[in-house]
């Protein structure tokens, strides 16, 4: 079922959680709401679920207005960050809950309930734990039970609030892949909230990046990563180096570095910031055509990529990530002076960008 969100506003006292947010979610899509804490992503998810009422705006399910539909009638599945399993019920009773509270004439027979619950438990590979209480399960197991419970009522929409936020890194990776596979099999419209950009980019069909109560960018993961629309998105999606300069008629100038851009043709000497990811910076020992220079401060050579930290003359730090081969060829040691050249930069004019320094 498709979801449309139209001009949603939500205030908590003086705090604006959502400021006129609109978003279309296609049927069968797996969508990630990504942003820092306090950006409004969880509020938006709870409004879609009906757990929170918007101050203004509409939520449409499959084209029909559901803004005033009660949570219990929205047919959504909701997975909570801290699982919210019923602690006094066995795993079986937890998963059966949604079916067993149905009005008598809609309720399946005990036999059918049993069958469906066991099928779901098999699907999450935990049928052998049917008799256990939530307190006896690990975090990953609890979250899988929570998911099975929400799927038992065959929801039209699945909403997940930081589903893997409370789990350790290894389990999180496994569950991530598992959720993706599950979605491929079931094709239920799903929205999940996360502050982990890697998670959002890896799992979802589309990512919605949010900040301060509005949507910064919507797009496919690779699209968003390659072409971030705003400085915020650029900074939020990963480590980035900042270089301040000017743009004049599509020509970027940073110190002695010059570069023709395919954009900002009508810029007239505007102040600009160029964002370059560490792996888009190459290190050289020649000053020709370099963007900046710096002294090698630290070298982290763990893993396939070597991360080199440089300190510029003005005290600013540059981080570059180069391959092991490249690092060996350069033969640099802490204290050396090296030059950096960008392979790819994202340039934003200062006035267009609004505030410049984000704290993430």
């Amino acid at each position, binding site marked *: 079922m498709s979801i449309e969100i139209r001009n949603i506003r939500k205030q908590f006292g003086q705090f604006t959680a959502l400021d006129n947010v609109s978003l279309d979610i296609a049927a069968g899509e797996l969508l990630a709401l990504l942003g820092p804490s306090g950006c409004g992503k969880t509020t938006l998810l709870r409004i879609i679920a009906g757990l929170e009422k918007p101050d203004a705006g509409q939520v449409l399910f499959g084209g029909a207005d559901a803004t005033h539909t009660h*949570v219990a009638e929205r047919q959504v599945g909701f997975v909570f960050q801290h699982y919210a399993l*019923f602690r006094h019920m066995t795993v079986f009773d937890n998963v059966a809950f949604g079916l067993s*509270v149905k009005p008598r004439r809609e309720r399946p027979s005990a036999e059918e309930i049993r069958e469906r619950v066991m099928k779901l438990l098999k699907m999450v590979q935990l049928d052998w734990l049917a008799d256990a209480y939530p307190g006896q399960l690990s975090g990953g197991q609890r979250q899988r039970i929570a998911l099975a419970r929400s799927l038992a009522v065959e929801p039209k929409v699945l909403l997940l609030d930081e589903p893997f936020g409370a789990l350790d890194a290894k389990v999180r990776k496994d569950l991530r892949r598992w959720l993706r596979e599950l979605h491929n099999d079931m094709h239920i419209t799903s929205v999940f909230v996360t502050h982990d950009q890697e998670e959002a980019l890896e799992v979802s069909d589309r990512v919605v990046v949010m900040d301060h109560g509005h949507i910064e960018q919507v797009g496919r993961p690779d699209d968003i990563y390659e072409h971030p629309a705003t400085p915020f998105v650029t900074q939020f999606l990963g480590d980035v180096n900042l270089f301040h300069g000017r743009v004049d008629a599509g020509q970027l100038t940073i110190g002695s570095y010059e570069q023709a851009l395919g954009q900002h043709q009508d810029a007239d000497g505007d102040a600009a910031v160029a964002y370059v990811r560490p792996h888009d910076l190459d290190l050289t020992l020649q000053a020709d055509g370099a963007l900046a220079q710096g002294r090698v401060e630290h070298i982290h050579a763990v893993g396939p990529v070597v991360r080199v930290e440089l300190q510029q003359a003005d005290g600013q730090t540059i981080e570059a990530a180069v391959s092991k081969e490249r690092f060996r060829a350069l033969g640099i040691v802490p204290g050396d002076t090296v030059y950096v050249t960008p392979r790819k930069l994202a340039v934003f004019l200062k006035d267009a960008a609004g505030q410049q320094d984000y704290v993430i």
Partner: protein
Amino acid sequence: MANLTTESRPVRYALTAVALLFLFLFLLLPLIGVFWEALHKGWQLYLTALVEPEAWSAIKLTLISAAIAVPLNLVFGVSAAWAIARFDFRGKSLLTTLIDLPFAVSPVVAGLMFILLFGANTAVGGWLQDHGLQVIFAVPGIVLATVFVTFPFVARELIPLMQSQGADEEQAAIVLGASGWQTFRKVTLPNIKWGLLYGVILTNARAMGEFGAVSVVSGHIRGETNTIPLHVEILYNEYNFVGAFACASLLALLALVTLLVKSLVEWRLHRQQQASTLRTAEARLQAAQP
């Protein structure tokens, strides 16, 4: 094996001894004293003291006022705790403070408040009396006073519990399609049942044992408006020690029975969970085998 986190042996023994001595002197010894005084002239006298009409009427009145006060405060306590723990509203802190009022006010003052409100010479009391309802120096007054002094127990017990548990489980139930009542019965109630039971036990104990407030509004009419604690005092003042302590032993017995019931229920629950842990361990083993 040396344990680095505990105190040395003599300190531990000394602390335990102090605690046990205190319990013995202030709890066990008086309790033994009550039963000793009640029984030392034989069972016959003890039973006679309990079934004589005035004692019997006091027992009945105590049971009636507890039977009204406990359910009332159960309903009120759960609603208040629910409202305070789950919703934000104007005047929430005022409500929280008001719940504590009966603890803050001396029971005697509480009794006097009801006399000022419902006494025969007041507007409300006079009007009620004209319509055939006497509140003060009658059963309704005793029930009112009992409800008032036992007001906070259930709510006080539940508010911190419900606040610490959070609303996630209830929200999960509602998203799954449960109605408000189903959510309360199947999710909220099982989660708070221990706190609730404890609150009810405290309410009941206080309802049956309340002296001050009830004493002021009762008028001490023998065989009519005497509760067990009031009856104990009267008998004691008349040097009828066996009678006084026989009735007192009833109240003490009640306390012991409630504690026993609580331990029993806790023990059964513990056994249930152990059984489940065992079954889970077995299932784990089976799942681990190829």
